[in-house]
């Protein structure tokens, strides 16, 4: 028997879901925003992010004392999966909402929380993520960006790459080496860096679709005050692991091509068995992703489960593209006025990056296997 509290929580979640769905539909229609595949990477609107914040749908788990609505991680899950399924323009506040807010709640000082969280909850404070470097991609522990003690603060030297929308963001959460260490995972720390500071240079990386999502961000002796260190000096690795679990397990790891799949089923009545097998995979991945979200909500760091979600989810996204090509073949065309041809084009052109971003699937499988086998 379902207990009353569960039933009440479920009814509230359904009500929230319906409100978000109606809002996204209305807002996107009135602003002429199209649904996009990979919208959390590619599609953005400051107005949309702000409108979400105004409704309490950005930085949702941030408590009231820091200007947030203090909702549960599962309520946040409902909201973001609705937005992703709608292909809504959420990229601007995405990273602040997904991982920086939670990182500040876990590790931030009261002053840091007061400084950043209200803006994140308003959907107005954008963060870029500074993990990968030109010489350190999948091998994250090889970061060479250094922060050295300098008077009462720090001096940051190095470069970060593949930073989504750093050119539009206000701040970056940077992983840097602060202390020499035998163990490569020790001696790392995280910094909250204002991207308008002197010595910060942001250079675009144009991707194969001709657009600018990514940037290289160079820190040339950037002076940081003491309040920029997030959490504990030397604990950067474990802090980042918690962040990566958030980054890898969310619904954006299996819903990137959902706008295409939705459009496909609107356009065709064909319901072949292969579609059913794919839908079973979707339902299973969603159940896994939700259970990881619950674990994260309890304060756990389910690194392995998150890696599994990302591996299965991103491969599922690719299968959607192939099924669409098979069921309703059209020439993919980014400039097409036909929504399906455009969504197919978007899905195709982003095919290579889904299994790369957030840690290549092969590296993630290595983590899964070594954890299981203790090797």
């Amino acid at each position: 028997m379902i207990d009353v509290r569960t039933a009440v929580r479920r009814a509230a979640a359904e009500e929230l879901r319906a409100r978000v769905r109606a809002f996204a539909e209305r807002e996107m229609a009135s602003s002429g925003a199209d649904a996009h595949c990979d919208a959390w990477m590619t599609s953005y609107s400051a107005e949309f992010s702000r409108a979400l914040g105004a409704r309490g749908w950005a930085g949702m788990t941030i408590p009231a004392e820091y200007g947030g609505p203090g909702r549960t991680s599962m309520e946040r899950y409902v909201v973001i999966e609705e937005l992703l399924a709608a292909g809504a323009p959420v990229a601007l506040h995405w990273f602040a909402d997904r991982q920086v807010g939670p990182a500040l709640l876990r590790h931030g000082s009261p002053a840091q929380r007061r400084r950043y969280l209200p803006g994140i909850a308003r959907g107005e404070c954008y963060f870029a993520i500074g993990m990968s470097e030109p010489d350190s991609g999948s091998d994250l522990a090889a970061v060479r960006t250094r922060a050295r003690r300098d008077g009462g603060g720090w001096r940051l030297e190095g470069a970060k790459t593949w930073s989504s929308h750093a050119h539009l963001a206000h701040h970056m959460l940077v992983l840097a080496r602060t202390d020499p260490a035998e163990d490569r995972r020790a001696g790392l720390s995280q910094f909250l860096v204002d991207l308008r500071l002197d010595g910060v240079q942001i250079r675009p990386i144009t991707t194969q679709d001709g657009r600018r999502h990514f940037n290289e961000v160079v820190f040339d002796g950037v002076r940081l005050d003491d309040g920029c260190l997030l959490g504990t000096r030397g604990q950067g690795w474990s802090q980042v692991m918690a962040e990566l679990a958030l980054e890898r397990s969310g619904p954006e790891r299996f819903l990137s091509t959902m706008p295409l799949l939705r459009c496909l089923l609107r356009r065709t009545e064909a319901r072949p068995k292969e579609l059913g097998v794919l839908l079973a995979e979707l339902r299973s991945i969603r159940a896994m992703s939700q259970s990881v979200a619950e674990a994260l909500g309890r304060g756990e760091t389910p690194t392995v489960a998150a890696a599994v979600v990302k591996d299965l989810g991103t491969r599922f996204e690719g299968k959607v593209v192939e099924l669409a090509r098979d069921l309703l073949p059209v020439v993919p065309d980014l400039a097409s006025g036909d929504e399906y041809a455009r969504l197919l084009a978007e899905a195709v052109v982003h095919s290579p990056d889904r299994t790369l971003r957030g840690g290549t699937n092969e590296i993630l499988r290595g983590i899964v296997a070594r954890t299981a086998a203790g090797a």
Partner: protein
Amino acid sequence: MSGEIADAIAAILRNFPQGSADGSWDETLGRAATDALRDGDWLDVSLPDLGDLADAVAVAAAVTAHGWPSPVPDLLLITNSALAAVGVPRSHRCPIVVPGPGRLDGTGRVTAAAEHVAWAPWADQLLVVAQDPRGRPTLVAVDPGQAELRPGHTLHGSPWAHVRLENAAAEYLGTATDDLAEFVTTAGALARSAQSLAALERVRALSVEHVRTRVQFGRPLAAFQAVQQHLAALIGEVAAAEAAVAQALGDVRDIRELVGDPRLSTAKIRTSAAATEAARLAHQLHGAIGIAREHELHRHTLALLTWREEFGNERFWGGRLAASAGPDLWAWLTG
């Protein structure tokens, strides 16, 4: 709870050690083990007031994880459910459901035929799903002596039989309000999903252990990246199967809730698909050792590969799941 159940089942099954001679299944020992589980009341876990569905699934999983053929999952999840659907208690030691479809005439005689009925050779009572003269779904009991049974074995050595009944004398048990055949298919698919998950978890454990301990080229297999990729893919498949079964069971108390439900289709499709991949990967990781008669691995993988086809394979349920999705996919998924 499921941990305690697994421990209790394992303690009983330890008394009937299989495979001691040449790695083959001893049917007499299998019957004795089933009797011991019955005497321990483990076959009544799914009866109303005695337990719930989650417990019954846990028992089925624990017996399956042991790796040897057993009718216990079918008795718990299929037989007990069919009897419960018509409101009749179990009266025999090993009643096996014959999905039919059968026809019951006005004089109480039934005609039915079904192929590959799992555990039919062990039945002391056949429970036949049939339509009565008025077209209502009915469950009748038939003495196996009244039936023509052509016995055989599944790929993993579990007994089945083709069953034919020609105007056989039948005892009327009850009439169901719902489609009884569909209900049996659902119960069977749930049983095989839960069993497949149990086998998959065992396959995962055996594979992890093997790559940890087996040394080749001077290193444990787990140190090779190619091996790690396979192992992680295997772990991913098992995790997906776990999620699929968990979302199907959820807070379901009665298998009836799962009839025609996308959650059930999802569980059977995903566990069957995982079986294909996991069996392939596990054998690849084990090398030839896994197909040696004395090794445990193939007992699980052959069972997994067999169960894919029982009570509807991925394509059968895939067709149904796809057909249930309307033009608004997202509403369907979140509804």
